[in-house]
Every structure is written in structure tokens, then in C-alpha cells.
């Protein structure tokens, strides 16, 4: 039979890990996006260490101090102070906490609602599917910002009200994407094999279906987080979101609008922070989608 030198290297596929790494690093946009997001998360976590001052401490003798690059600026307040003399850098750093808290909490609530509905619709089909589709259509016919404004105007604004309102409004995309992804996986033979093995519906949904649609879930979650952060900023800007003196970026922009023509940085700095975070999350989300897309047979 075959002796050792006769054997040829067998046709083998590269390991899953090395292929994944190659694909991830090939996505420059993803690397940049995830890098910025990671930096912002780190800043938010280390806020008490990084912030030079207490973000709530008012100093009426040092109001509207400009950032260091202006002639009148100083390194005591690198990004200046606001109309109440609070250190602007500290407020921007603590603002990241609010934005990330909003983004993550809203995605957890809406993700749970949407994924449950989408999984149920895609897995069971028939009447359940019809009901979920009806709920999604109903939800889509309501403009998020108007409903959120109405609710907040009625019961008053606070950080947790904003999170709950957005969480209960923004599950539609989760439901739609999870529904179609589940339908696809549902028809595959490994689900039938698990059924034939006697596995319960819960076990099949959690063990066979969910792990295979999780990549889609992550992509939707990132994009929805960005959208929730923007909506919070919009609500806060209109005075119906996070209430002062919390340092929300949207609220900071709102508070600064009266000084727009005299102290432009008051709007520009939180605005830039907001834009950078949204840009980075979207970049990471899009990159993630491209990394996941070619998954499957090679």
C-alpha cells in the first residue's frame, strides 16, 4: 500500500478562525469603525478618571471660557466652559456615558421584543406570522419621533422614560430581519433533523436557529443603537428627552443654541462627538454585514 513519501497533501480548507481573521482585517472600514467605538466606550467607562473636573460643578465667574486654541482659552478648561461655567471636556466625556447607555438599553429592549416576534413569525409561520406582520405594519405606520414626543409630553421626560419609549418603538427592524432569517434557517434539514431527534421547539429555536441568525442580529443591533442615540439627541434638543443637568450631547447642543453666534464651540464640540460616534457605529455595522455576508459554502 502507500508508503509515507507517496502521500500528497489532502485538499483542505483553511480553518474557520484564520479565514475569519483574514476577512475581518480585509475590511478597513470595519477596523476603523470598531476602533473608534472601542475608544469611546473606554472613555465612557473611565470617565471619573479622565474628566479633569466635576461635570456638574458650576462656576459662574468662569462662564463661556473658550477652548485652549483660542487666545482667551486656557489649559485649565481644555475645551472651555459652558454658560454656567461647567467644564466642557468633563461634560462631553460624561455625555458619552449617556449616549452609550441609551444606545445599549434601547437595543436590548427593542432587540428582545423584535427578535422574539421575528423568531415566532419565522418559525411557526401561518397565523402567528400573519399576526406579527400585522403588528409590524401597525408599528411602521406610527412616526417614531411624533409618538415619542407625545408620550414624553404627557408623562414628562427623563432618561429612563426616553429609553423605555424608544425601546418599545424601535423593535420593527429586528422583527423584520429576524423573521426572514428564521424562515431561511427553518427550512434547512438540520432543523428537521433536530425535530426528528425529538428536540422540543424551545431547544430547536435556541440551539439550532438562534446561533445561525445571530450574525444578522448583531448587524441590526449596531445600526439600531446608532439610530437610538440620534433620536435621544433629537428629543433632548427639543427639551423632551434627558433633563438638565445631565450631560447629554443633544441637551448640550440645545442649551448652546442661544450662544451659537458668540460661542460656536458650545455646539460644535458635542455635535462633533455625536457625529463621530454615529459614523463609527455605522462603519462598524456595515463592515460587519460585509464580513458576515460571504459566510456559508465556499
Amino acid at each position, binding site marked *: 500500500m502507500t508508503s509515507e513519501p507517496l502521500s500528497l497533501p489532502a*485538499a*483542505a*480548507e483553511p*480553518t*474557520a478562525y484564520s479565514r475569519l481573521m483574514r476577512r475581518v482585517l480585509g475590511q478597513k472600514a470595519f477596523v476603523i469603525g470598531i476602533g473608534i467605538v472601542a475608544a469611546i466606550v473606554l472613555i465612557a467607562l473611565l470617565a471619573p478618571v479622565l474628566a479633569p473636573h466635576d461635570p456638574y460643578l458650576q462656576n459662574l465667574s468662569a462662564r463661556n471660557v473658550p477652548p485652549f486654541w483660542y487666545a482667551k482659552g486656557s489649559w485649565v478648561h481644555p475645551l472651555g466652559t459652558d454658560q454656567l461655567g461647567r467644564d466642557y471636556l468633563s461634560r462631553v466625556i460624561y455625555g458619552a456615558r449617556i449616549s452609550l447607555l441609551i444606545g445599549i438599553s434601547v437595543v436590548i429592549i427593542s432587540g428582545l421584543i423584535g427578535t422574539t416576534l421575528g423568531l415566532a413569525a419565522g418559525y411557526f409561520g401561518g397565523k402567528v406570522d400573519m399576526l406579527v406582520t400585522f403588528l409590524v405594519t401597525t408599528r411602521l405606520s406610527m412616526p417614531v419621533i411624533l409618538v415619542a414626543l407625545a408620550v414624553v409630553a404627557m408623562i414628562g421626560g427623563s432618561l429612563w422614560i426616553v429609553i423605555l419609549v424608544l425601546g418599545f418603538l424601535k423593535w420593527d427592524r429586528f422583527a423584520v430581519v429576524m423573521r426572514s432569517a428564521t424562515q431561511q434557517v427553518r427550512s*434547512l*434539514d*438540520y432543523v*428537521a*433533523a*433536530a*425535530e*426528528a*431527534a*425529538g*428536540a*422540543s421547539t424551545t*431547544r430547536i429555536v435556541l*440551539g*439550532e436557529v438562534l*446561533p*445561525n441568525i445571530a450574525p444578522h442580529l448583531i448587524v441590526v443591533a449596531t445600526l439600531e443603537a446608532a439610530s437610538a442615540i440620534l433620536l435621544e439627541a433629537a428629543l433632548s434638543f427639543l427639551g423632551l428627552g434627558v433633563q438638565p443637568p445631565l450631560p447629554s450631547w443633544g441637551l448640550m447642543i440645545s442649551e448652546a443654541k442661544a450662544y451659537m453666534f458668540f460661542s460656536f464651540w458650545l455646539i460644535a464640540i458635542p455635535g462633533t462627538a455625536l457625529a463621530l460616534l454615529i459614523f463609527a457605529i455605522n462603519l462598524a455595522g456595515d463592515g460587519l454585514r460585509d464580513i458576515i455576508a460571504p459566510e456559508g*459554502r*465556499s
Partner: protein
Amino acid sequence: MTALIEAHDLTRSFEVSRGMFKGKRTLHAVNGISLDIRQGEVLAIVGESGCGKSTLARMLLGLLPPSAGAITLEGQDIRSLGRKGMARRVQPVFQDPYSSLNPRRTIASIVALPLEVHGIGTAAERRKMTIEMLDKVGLPQRFADRYPRELSGGQRQRVAIARALVMKPEVVVCDEPTSALDVSVQSQILNLLMDLRRELNLTYVFISHNLAVVEHIATRVAVMYLGRVVELAETAALFKAPRHPYTKALLASVLTPEPGLGIPDTGLGIAFPDPLNPPSGCPFHPRCPERLPQCASVVPQILRDETGAVACHLHGQGPAPH
């Protein structure tokens, strides 16, 4: 031989939507099939796409409830056995080894899933049983912690067979288990299936469109056409003396690797009927080279005799009663 599974007048229909304003039509995928599967046999179910053989397989596995009729396992209705009760006795092997294995599980976890579901043994015992089963289907232990994507098509099909057999079932329903494989791999899987059958005393329902494979592996053959069984016989008898014209055409279409024989003329018309709008009378009559005047209007009765069964006016008991 005793009947292990019996299908009684089994029917399955689907509502097919034909667009928004056209309303629905009923597709009779399986249309009144009565069949027995005997202990220890290999019953092949043969037919072309759309004949209902996969729907029948799903019903035999308990994955799809029949619209009418019933399936019994040793006299007991399978609906009363429940999902878990069925799983211990009847297991599937599917056609496409790429979609039948969960890509996010390791091979060991795929094979151990039925054991886990039924709460058999401790984790360590399950692992041991899994490794033994993998060894039985010809996969060395080093495959246990790999993922399906790292395996070839043939190796994946071995994993699917290991998963089906790990619970020691009595019946395995193989739905085109080798159609997606290369010929050199197909022969390995067929050899393996035959070895396992002998070793574990299994009964196979073997669904296929490849008559050469069927002749090799099956002991009895049921030929399906548009949701009905048109002929049923022992393999040797069916291949030697087919009775239904459709069986004859199928046998004629087998292209064996024998040069010089040319390509056979099946004598069938070109149009395969629309399953949503099946022909009246005998569903095969528009394509049948031997049709009689009554074929277009009268559905042939099934004639059951010592060779098997055939549903054709050429082999009728004369005019139908009534």
C-alpha cells in the same frame, strides 16, 4: 416478515397561493397511499421530482401530519407516540449533507444531540457513545471537535448517518442520501449503509430517483407517480418484469455505463403534467405509450396480488365495481 410501519390511505395536500387575486389551489402531494414497511427490509420509494416521495418521507418521520389517513408503528398510531417516542424508533438521513448539519456545532455535538434531548447518560458517557458511533461510520476520533465546514461531502454524510443511528432506531428513512455525492463517495456510503443494516438489524426506507442504486440496495420497490404508488414489487421481480408502463419507462431511462447501447427512447411525451392540475383518470395517461380508451376517464384500481401491487388498466380486475 411482519409489518413494522403501516400507512393507511395516506393523503397530504397543500394550499398553494397563485398570486394575490387568484385564490388558492390544492396540491395533492400524496394522494391515498397505503403501504407497509416490513421488519428488516429495504423499501425503496422511487419517482421523479414532484411525485410526492419527499412528502411521504416527512410523514413517515412524523415531521408532517397527514391531511387524511394514518400511520401506525406496530399497530400504534404515531400521533400517540409523540415527537420523542417517534425519535427513538425512526430517524432520517437527508440528501444534502451541507444543509443537514448545523454549521455552528461541532461534529461531536451534532451526533450527541439526540442523546442530550432524551437525557441519556452523563456528558462523559454521551461523549463515549458519540466517539463509538463516529468510529462505526468510519470517522476517526480527531473529527469529533471539528466543524462541518472542515469536512468533505462524504464525511458530512457519515456524520448525518452517525446522528441518525446514535439512538439505535429500528427504521432509518434515507431521503436521496447519495444524490449530492460524487460516484466514488456514493459507493462508500452505500457500502456503509449496507454494513450498518446487517450489523444493527435496521429497516430502511430508501428514497431515490436513481434506479441503479435502488436495484443494488433495495429488497422491495414502490414506484410513485403524481402522489400515488403505481407499482410495488420485490426488487428482482420489478426489474425483471415491470408491469406499469411508467415503471417500464423509468427502467428504460437508466443509463448504465455500457458503450454501444445508445440512448434509449422512453416513448413518453415531453410534457410532465402540472401537479396542480393533474390529468383525469389515470394520472399517467397523457404520457403513456400503452393507454387504453378508459384511461382518460377512470382512475385505475390497485390490484394487489402475490407479486405486489399495480395500478393500471392493463392489469385490472376488469371493469371497476359499481
